[in-house]
């Protein structure tokens, strides 16, 4: 498996795990209250930080593990990376537009922050899935 494909798997899994932990923390924090009253800022910041740190650590880990494999990325990896990121970014746009619409309707901050976070996660997951599909099925 190519170094960049391993990295795509890792980033996809990290995004899903991080968001799952966030959802559990917020649901537990709600403790029967309406969801908008649940404390979410701390959980959101910590899981975002976890995602960034885990992404860096996985990159270093895979880099060390494949240090003897010679070249780690080439034109195909760069093309797949670009296409994958391009596909994933569609959710960043959807998130931005959704947050803008929610702000216009004066929705609670909870929903604005959460729609943005969810779309960042979906962007990372979709981007990773697209890259893995390109690696597995080919990119012509």
């Amino acid at each position, binding site marked *: 498996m190519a170094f960049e494909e391993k990295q795509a798997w890792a980033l996809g899994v990290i995004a899903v795990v991080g968001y799952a932990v966030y959802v559990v923390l917020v649901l537990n924090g709600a403790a029967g209250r309406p969801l908008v009253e649940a404390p979410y800022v701390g959980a959101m910041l910590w899981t975002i930080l976890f995602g960034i740190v885990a992404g860096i650590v996985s990159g270093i880990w895979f880099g060390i593990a494949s240090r003897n494999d010679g*070249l780690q990325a080439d034109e195909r990896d760069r093309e797949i990376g670009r296409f994958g990121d391009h596909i994933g970014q569609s959710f960043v746009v959807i998130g931005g537009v959704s947050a803008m619409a929610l702000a216009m309707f004066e929705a609670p901050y909870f929903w604005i922050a959460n729609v943005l976070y969810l779309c960042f996660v979906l962007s990372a997951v979709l981007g990773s899935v697209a890259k893995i599909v390109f690696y597995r099925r080919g990119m012509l």
Partner: protein
Amino acid sequence: MKPTKVTNSIRALRFARGEMKQADLAAAIGVTRQTLIAIEQGKYSPSLEVAFKIARVFEVSLEEVFQYPEEEEL
């Protein structure tokens, strides 16, 4: 994903060259072994630059490495 109509003879050329290893060819043309496998299997169409590098390694013309069917065959 639509399959490419470009075929290649890299595998045959490698074997004609004393069973040249994929890793050696990949290193010679500056791509990873995974990319060379993808090219050989027709899952990735390389850039023109890489295609020329492959042809130069085998000292053959580009069309001896890569083939594209005539219009009536498409």
